[in-house]
């Protein structure tokens, strides 16, 4: 299969990429890792007349850890998976991305690309929600920062403007008393999440003082589980507390069914995987 014809640009700076986006608007698509876009173009599900390949923009690559964690939008899954510094300060990131696709997908796929594409079964979407990450974007008007919780607006849709580019993802380092985990039920062939649960907890004085849970795969949009989070807050984080808090998980969110897993089954798995992610996150928070 061959994509329909397009004009190809490979800018070497963010400013150049933005000016191309301004010039070509909706006709243009950004190419990062290309492992969602190129297959869609080969199937002619996408047929942009202009392709802006940002992979030559070196400033968008790499992980910087200082007061917080700054991951360039073009950083590949492979880099995140094998990054020594990340394991100690935010181990859930390498844990989750190591479960994406296969080695070749992880060699090419990028964090920024996955968030911009917002596939309903992507893994990273749930993780950035649970980590309460900030998504930095660049557009003609300059930079802005969008909270992950405001970023995913609908199926395959985000708060990103057509002339904006994601430049980085910023999240906090996890310290003592904090823990996070990702638990995934992968589709056995594609490795996309049938259900993926990302959980973050903070323990203060033996009580859960902060809790975030996000689900991917089950529905059209990665979704925070507000009821579960509220139910676990101020509890002791025991197995009983987790079991009680997850009783209502997935009951109010939009869930889709398909030939691989029905809506009811996915809802049931949301509970199971939320419980697993929270249990692991709590164990990590206890150290």
């Amino acid at each position, binding site marked *: *299969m*061959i*994509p*329909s*014809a*397009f*004009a*190809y640009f*490979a800018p070497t700076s963010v400013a150049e990429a933005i000016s191309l986006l301004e010039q070509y608007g909706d006709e243009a698509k950004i*190419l990062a890792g*290309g*492992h969602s876009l*190129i*297959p869609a*173009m*080969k*199937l002619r599900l996408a047929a942009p007349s202009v*392709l802006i*390949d940002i*992979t030559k923009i070196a400033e968008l690559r790499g992980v910087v850890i200082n007061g917080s964690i700054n991951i360039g939008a073009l950083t590949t899954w*492979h880099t995140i998976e*094998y990054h020594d510094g990340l394991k100690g300060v935010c181990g859930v990131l390498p844990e989750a991305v190591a479960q994406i*696709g*296969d*080695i*070749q*997908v992880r*060699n*090419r796929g990028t964090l920024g690309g996955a968030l911009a594409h917002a596939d309903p079964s992507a893994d990273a979407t749930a993780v950035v929600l649970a980590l309460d990450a900030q998504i930095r974007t660049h557009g003609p008007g300059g930079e802005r920062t969008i909270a992950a919780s405001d970023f995913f607006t609908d199926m395959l849709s985000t708060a990103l403007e057509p002339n904006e580019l994601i430049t980085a993802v910023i999240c906090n380092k996890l310290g003592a008393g904090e823990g996070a985990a990702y638990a995934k039920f992968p589709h056995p*062939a*594609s*490795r996309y999440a049938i259900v993926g649960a990302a959980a973050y907890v903070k323990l203060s004085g033996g009580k859960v003082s902060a809790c975030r849970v996000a689900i991917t795969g089950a529905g059209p949009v990665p979704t925070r589980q507000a009821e579960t989070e509220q139910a676990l807050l101020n509890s002791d984080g025991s197995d009983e507390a987790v079991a009680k808090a997850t009783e209502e998980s997935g009951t109010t969110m939009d869930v889709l069914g398909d030939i691989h897993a029905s809506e009811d089954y996915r809802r049931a798995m949301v509970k199971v995987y939320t419980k697993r992610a929270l249990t692991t996150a709590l164990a990590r928070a206890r150290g």
Partner: protein
Amino acid sequence: MTTISVTVNGKQYTRDVEPRMLLVHFLREQLNLTGTHIGCDTSQCGACVVHLNGVSVKSCTTLAVQADGATVTTIEGLANGATLHPLQEGFWEKHGLQCGYCTPGMIMAAADLLKHNPNPSDAEIRHGLEGNLCRCTGYENIVKAVRYAADKMSVTTAD
């Protein structure tokens, strides 16, 4: 048309390509390197895996223009003259193929796996080859072939 210059298996090629040309078509149709296969054409089977700047990629999901200035290694470039690469030897010795269609991609993916994990367990080999489908062997002998290569390469390194 865009002019690209790519070093493939140690030899530099300069060609005019359409931006929409996939790397696998560039290799097979422009350079006549037909060892790289097209299997599913939907980024799932791994028959088209080559190394781009030393990293394994699906050449059916990479544009030829993206390889401009890069170094590509295909299955044809893996052997050292008449001496097979340990992975090629392993697939030969352990009968890691039947029809052979998936073999070039399997070997190129396994080479990347062994680079990061020179002594993988059988489970790690299976996990590492998740992006490569074989419809003949049931994978048993493929795992043995990769194990054979890992053992042989570790001996060579120890020497």
